[in-house]
């Protein structure tokens, strides 16, 4: 596999069998892997992740789910109609990835009756400390610049991660990543263009952009932290060691920031701990809102 992203915008690198005409905004039947397909494979016993892979899928699913929840709040509140649509698209893409990862994770986490946990069991009936998302994803939307700063970091990180995961020895992880990497590439494009516009727009937008980046940068380090799980999975070829993404991430984000005449923020790193269930104060509120209705009607189907 190619381990190095040459530059910004080479969307086909490392994506085996990708369709360069696929749109992130359109359903591509026969090509796109849907969460329902994974659920069916789980049900019929065609796929079952190892305990480690399930835990890993849970991490990536939680990241995407929490971000989708955050971004979903923007719809009907964005600075322009075009951004209601764009942020909505990104939220939908993230939600789609979350559903696939969580469905797969659930296949390795059985309920008391011996059946697999569903995406909804995992999303709606876990508590804060059981979520495995890193803290960047739960950071508040703030103003549009803060949202763009968060999305900029996320999209460059996810792109490097998913690009490599397409070569995972775990076929389901590879398939989810192959769909996701194409979509996340559009997210890179969206966020980097806004970084340039806001940094090069007005004095106010530049000030806000710098502030937004400073708000998010303490949570960058956590994205690239290895632990025992990722080490085991990376050695087996199923996952990617987070630390191995850092070099490309640093180089590519620095290119965009340099073009925008911005500095990489020099701010102290937060301790993080999301992968072990340690979260910021924000996650509790996110879950309270997201889970309230489902928990009022346990066992109901919608």
């Amino acid at each position, binding site marked *: 596999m190619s381990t190095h992203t040459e530059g910004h915008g080479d969307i086909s690198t490392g994506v085996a069998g990708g369709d360069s005409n696929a749109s992130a905004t359109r359903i591509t039947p026969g090509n796109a892997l849907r969460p329902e397909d994974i659920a069916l494979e789980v049900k019929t016993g065609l796929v079952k992740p190892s305990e480690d892979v399930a835990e890993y899928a849970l991490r990536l699913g939680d990241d995407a789910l929490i971000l989708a929840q955050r971004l*979903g709040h923007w719809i*009907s509140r964005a600075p322009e109609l075009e951004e209601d649509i764009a942020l909505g698209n990104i939220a939908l893409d993230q939600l789609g990835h979350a559903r696939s990862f969580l469905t797969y994770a659930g296949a390795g986490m059985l309920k008391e009756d011996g059946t697999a946990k569903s995406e909804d069991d995992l999303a709606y009936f876990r508590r804060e400390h059981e979520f495995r998302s890193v803290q960047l994803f739960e950071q508040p939307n703030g103003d549009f610049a803060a949202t763009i700063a968060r999305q900029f970091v996320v999209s460059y990180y996810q792109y490097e991660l998913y690009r490599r995961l397409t070569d995972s020895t775990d076929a389901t992880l590879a398939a989810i990543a192959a769909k996701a990497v194409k979509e996340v590439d559009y997210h890179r494009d969206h966020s980097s263009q806004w970084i340039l516009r806001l940094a090069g727009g007005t004095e106010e937008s530049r000030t806000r952009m710098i502030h937004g980046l400073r708000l998010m940068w303490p949570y960058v380090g956590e994205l690239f932290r290895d632990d025992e799980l990722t080490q085991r999975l990376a050695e087996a070829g199923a996952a990617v060691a987070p630390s191995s993404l850092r070099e490309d991430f640093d180089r590519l984000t620095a290119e965009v920031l340099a073009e925008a005449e911005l500095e990489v923020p020099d701010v102290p790193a937060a301790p993080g701990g999301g992968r072990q269930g340690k979260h910021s104060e924000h996650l509790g509120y996110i879950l309270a809102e997201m889970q309230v209705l489902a928990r009022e009607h346990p066992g109901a189907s919608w």
Partner: protein
Amino acid sequence: MAAQNLQSVPAELTPEEDAAGQAHFDRIIAEDSRIEPRDWMPAAYRKTLLRQISQHAHSEIIGMQPEANWITRAPSLKRKAILMAKVQDEAGHGLYLYSAAETLGQTRDKMMDDLIAGKARYSSIFNYPALSWADMGAIGWLVDGAAICNQVPLCRASYGPYGRAMVRICKEESFHQRQGFEILLELSNGTPEQKQMAQDAVNRWYAPALMMFGPPDDDSPNSKQSMAWNIKRFSNDELRSRFVGMMVEQVRVLGLTLPDDQVRFNEDTKKWEHGPLDWHEFQEVLAGRGPCNAQRLERRRAAHDDGAWVREAAAAYAAKQSAKQQKEYAA
């Protein structure tokens, strides 16, 4: 700007040119063909269309709010995805409609300013609150259902850009209506609490949805001219009656009831009839005294104002880039 090229705001024309234009316009209407942006059109036709299309666009934008209210609380991830996509479609509908209205000589900025200033109308239905998850079903089934009955004939509206925008919008709307129906069906077949939630939502949205077709025919002064211009094809009461007939069939499949014991098929007129509607309430909501009028406008104003610095930044950046390119081109 493409919109400016399409604009056909008339320059000073001679009486002879006006007469020729009117004759051309009359012929197109008589042939039931299409008026395009560059064609001559009567000032009143332009004004009527601009009002109708911009109101329709505003309705899509304000209509995002009651449903966006449930995105973060949707009770399953699949429903969350469907709802997000639906609200996003509404933003898209707003965009096509603002573009269609721009071909009549009004900018989107001006239309947005009029909306926020309370000078422009949008469909009153969106001034009712979305109180439970079942409202996502009832809005899709009843509100989008009524919208489709209104809008399918508009696909043949005499003004080309409007008719063409409506074709695409109607396709998506019928998808939305099916999704609403499916939400209600799932609830109706669910727990007793879920079924109660569904019935309550249908009870609250039924009458406001019927009023979406506008006042009764004998109290709808603008309808006649719009029908003569081939903008409107059927009267308010005719469309309302058709809609009631459709709902009567569908509510049975849902296992729910319509909150109207006077619904019946009149064998003499061959039309569906319904119980009396509270037109006083309709006028009150129209006059700004509905449950959510202030809230909806304030939310739109806040989003617009909060985003002002972003739009200014994008414009400033675009201007700088274009100046830079011109400089490079000149060098």
